[in-house]
């Protein structure tokens, strides 16, 4: 278990006054303090960790957010910002002495401007909600994390969320124009605007992906894009991981930029097929889903070329979707991958390292060896175009030893990712989950410099405490005793 700092006794002692002060800022039912109603906020997508907060506030305006932050800053109260609570890294895990700031009531789409191809939305609008709002006019919001039905744009900004289509469309950071940002002092600041590349320091860039360490985002100006004329997928299966990796290299090397290029290993193919009956080849060691865009002739041409390339690697199965429905069927298994693994094992950890794509065969071989030595099953899905690997480690949550083994297995995978030239997290964020692995990737000096930048925004270290940076080096937590969350 990853240790959390002990709560501040003086804050716990003032709980009643703090709740009263918050109720004065947010009238009505926007402040939650009863134990039963705090329960839904005690965890997020990393459900192995649970800790009810001191209170939850559900502001409905930027002004309320600013007033709450100003109060918390003045009174030394920690704040944990939260969107939909889908973080897989424990990014929204509360502390016992922290106020959770849930932004789900700020869920209005304020402006849609097709001429300038942008939308201004509040932080609590869901990722898919933006696309749903503009798709009738042929537009979409590009980043598409798997949780897009539930996850909120404010959380996407804070975690710099990705998705399956990053190779062509980039991640959240590449699809933003501006933010309404509230500092811990309660100052409301407009970052960027409705134009590209504001001169000066790239605040938009440093805030995006900062995991709630620097301030709270209440409104986001996103770029919306016109969708292509169409898109279609194909499936290619191979009898070895190495060969599938070579096929990926050959596709990229040919000059084609597929809009998605997904890789699944044998356990993942089997889990998905049992779940979705998508027609995946069960005798394959590795399978690729490749999607291209354009009109029907363009799709045919690109898929034809890719098919030719794949044929050079003796595929055991090649299936080009002839229709949009067949395309959906190919995707169906992949999109349900997490659910499919959940059916085999109710508890699994979803890891998220990135590796140089050329290292894939070596990394999967090593993961297989680790799986055997830990005695835990693992299924791998991989955004092969951008090197983002998602091993799903299956364990039994009712067995503490099994959970510990899964955590250690996961840590070993992430260390391996760094070892081969990659990183700890490609899109899920560090959160609580990977906090103590940060020294694997960064030197003490690099960590201290990032900590100091955090301190430049949040001098008292009140924002989303105990995440991202290992506790022992932090100016605030180094001397505070730690305890376990669960």
């Amino acid at each position, binding site marked *: 278990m990853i240790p959390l700092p002990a709560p501040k006794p003086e804050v716990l002692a003032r709980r009643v006054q703090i709740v009263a002060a918050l109720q004065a800022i947010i009238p009505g039912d926007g402040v939650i303090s009863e134990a039963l109603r705090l329960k839904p906020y005690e965890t997020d997508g990393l459900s192995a960790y649970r800790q009810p907060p001191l209170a939850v506030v559900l502001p409905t305006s930027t002004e309320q957010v600013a007033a709450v932050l100003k109060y918390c800053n003045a009174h030394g109260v920690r704040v944990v910002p939260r969107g939909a609570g889908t973080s897989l890294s424990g990014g929204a895990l509360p502390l016992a002495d922290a106020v959770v700031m849930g932004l789900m009531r700020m869920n209005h789409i304020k402006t849609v401007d097709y001429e*300038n191809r942008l939308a201004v939305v509040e932080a609590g609008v869901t990722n898919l909600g933006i696309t749903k709002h503009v798709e009738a006019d042929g537009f979409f919001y590009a980043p598409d994390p798997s949780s897009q039905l539930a996850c909120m744009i404010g959380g996407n900004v804070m975690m710099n969320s990705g998705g399956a289509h990053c190779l062509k469309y980039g991640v959240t950071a590449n699809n933003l124009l501006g933010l309404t940002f509230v500092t811990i002092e309660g100052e409301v600041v407009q970052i960027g605007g409705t134009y590209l590349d504001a001169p000066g320091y790239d605040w938009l860039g440093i805030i995006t992906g900062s995991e709630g360490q620097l301030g709270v985002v209440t409104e986001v100006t996103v770029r919306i894009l016109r*969708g292509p004329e169409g898109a279609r997928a194909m499936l290619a299966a191979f009898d070895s991981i190495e060969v599938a990796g070579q096929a990926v290299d050959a596709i990229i090397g040919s000059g084609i930029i597929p809009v998605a290029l997904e890789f699944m290993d044998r356990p993942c193919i089997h889990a998905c097929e049992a779940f979705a009956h998508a027609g995946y080849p069960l005798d394959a060691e590795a399978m690729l889903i490749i999607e291209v865009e354009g009109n029907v002739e363009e799709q045919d041409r690109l898929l034809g070329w890719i098919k030719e390339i794949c044929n050079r690697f003796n595929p055991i199965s090649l299936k080009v979707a002839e229709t949009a429905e067949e395309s959906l069927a190919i995707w169906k298994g992949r999109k349900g991958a997490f659910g499919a693994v959940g059916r085999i094992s109710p508890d699994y950890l979803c890891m998220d390292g990135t590796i140089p794509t050329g290292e894939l065969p070596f990394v999967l071989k090593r993961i297989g060896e680790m799986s055997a030595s830990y005695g835990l099953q693992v299924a791998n899905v991989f955004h092969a175009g951008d090197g983002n690997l998602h091993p799903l480690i299956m364990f039994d949550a009712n067995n503490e030893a099994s959970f510990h083994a899964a955590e250690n297995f996961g840590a070993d995978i992430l260390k391996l990712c760094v070892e081969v030239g*990659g990183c700890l997290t490609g899109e899920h964020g560090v959160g609580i989950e990977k906090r103590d692995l940060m020294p694997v990737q960064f030197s003490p000096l690099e960590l201290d410099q990032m900590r100091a930048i955090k301190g*430049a925004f949040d001098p008292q270290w009140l924002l989303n405490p105990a995440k991202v940076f290992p506790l022992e080096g932090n100016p605030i937590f180094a001397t505070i005793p730690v305890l376990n969350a669960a």
Partner: protein
Amino acid sequence: MLSSTIVPKSEDAVASLVIAAAAQGEKLAIEGNGSKRALLRPVQATRSVSLRGLTGITLYHPTELIISARAGTPLPEIEAALAEHGQHIIAEPPDLSALFGASRPATIGGIVATNLSGPRRIAWGAMRDHVMGIRAVNGKGEIFRSGGRVLKNVTGLDLCKLLTGSHGTLGVITEVTLKVLPAPKATGTVSIRVATLEQGIAALSAGLGSPFSVTGAALLPEGEGATAHLRIEDFSESVAYRCGKLRDDMARFGEATIGMDTQALWQGIRDAEPLGATAEEAIWRVSVQPSAAPGVVAALRAVGGGKFLLDWGGGLVWVAAHASEAAHQAVVAAALAAQGSYTLFRAPEALRGSVAVLPDEVPALAAIARRVKAVMDPAGLLNPGRMRAGQ
């Protein structure tokens, strides 16, 4: 004013000389080949450090779409290495040697430090979007890294973005790692004669809002009217097909024609050639939402005119005019009235030393900026005064 230029040959040498400068209370001007020395404010430094001694591609894996190079590597060297594998730098950085009268080519470190992108920015992102990793020396002489050599990375704070576009004021960039992509096999352009700038912007917006993956959208004013250019880049079959569809769609805005092999046109736009600025004129870049661009041009024409070139669908307005404080104030007023931003891009030293070359930040952000600067460069010895007084 600069007594000498030091050309360190290694990252360690950069670190040592920053430490020495800090000890002696010296201020350093940081540059690559100095091709954009005349950009923004004059640096208040006693010595100049050129990264041109740190050269060479250190890693290039075409199938992983990643290239790393030391900061002083000339851009053409990187472009040539990529071209051998049919790839390119996605953001299409400009060659401003003509604009700035530079004799040596830009370096990759300089392009990243200034976050300069070409016409493809509108479709594929800016330089800052493709900096996957960075190595740098901060103002304390400490070597640090951010990011890495993979395409997707959210580990820790993204200092790659903080350093990109910080004009050398937060750290001396020593090496960068970029995401690259396959270069298109063909370039086609649909050109539309329009009667007004408003019509031109409408045409560009319609093109960018079409499903045909437009990768360049520029407007070249000619008298009262203009020519709007929309670029399609892809495999040649796709370019031919989409240019045809786009031309049919654009006919409602004016006479539309298709040009193939139009790379030279876009290279010119990238380097602001059609602006036609004379050596004496000052140059500004105004960033606005595209629909506001005609208003910016109209406002400036009303107070004495100027030359204009619109890129990024109208979101980037290049302005050339008499290098005077009055002209600068007119540009500032027009940009702010359009809720946009501005940069005094090129001007004689007297002008750029006496006016705000970028908009001021609101007090809350300015305070954070001071604290961030104090973290990265506590003695304020890196490119002092480059962006703003104290920055």
